[in-house]
């Protein structure tokens, strides 16, 4: 996942790499996601999130819909 200055620059990058356009989030959402994902990483009790827990974390920050679905 990469950072871009605008939608136009995402389109240019997709064209350059011959890739279809994917999903986007705001920087604020990415910061929220980073906190959801990594705040407990140094805990001795850390374990990987289950697919359900990860999906719930996405939903909390507004990442819903087919693109953000973790299981097929």
């Amino acid at each position, binding site marked *: 996942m*990469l*950072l*871009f*200055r605008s939608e136009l*620059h995402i389109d240019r990058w997709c064209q350059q*790499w011959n890739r279809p356009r994917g999903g986007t989030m705001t920087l604020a959402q990415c910061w929220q996601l980073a906190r959801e994902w*990594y705040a407990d*990483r140094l805990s001795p009790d850390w374990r990987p999130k289950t697919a359900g827990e990860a999906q719930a974390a996405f939903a909390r920050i507004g990442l819903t819909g087919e693109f953000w679905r973790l299981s097929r």
Partner: protein
Amino acid sequence: MTAHDSTLRLYVYDHILRHEQTPSVSEIAKALKASLRETRAALVRLSESHAFMLQEDGELWRAAPFSAVPTPFPVRVGKKSWYGNCIWDALGISAMLAKDADINSTCACCNFAMPLHIRSGKLKEKAGIVHFAVPACRWYEDVVFT
């Protein structure tokens, strides 16, 4: 995850935080008084969750959110610096450490400087969009392009 895996996981993070680089397999084995075989097996188990990922030679490639190799996402926290695997992980280093951070990021399209600053748990910048090229269900099929 076994008790040894858990110890190894925390050792890897402790090493990264102290030395600003990932430990080699032999360094991990020596520090934990384990054989190379045991250490490699533990790293493979820890890679099943994708929290750790290995290079072709078996050395660590990423111990999320840290990258073992240089990336376009350098993160500075105080006097120390690391590389994030992506913008999510670069922000994740600050989130993980609960510390202020400066991320020297750029636009992936044109290399325009887009430095980010986290202060007291808040991201100062608002401009910028994060793009995921691959749907969530396929993220680990092509990590580089995700």
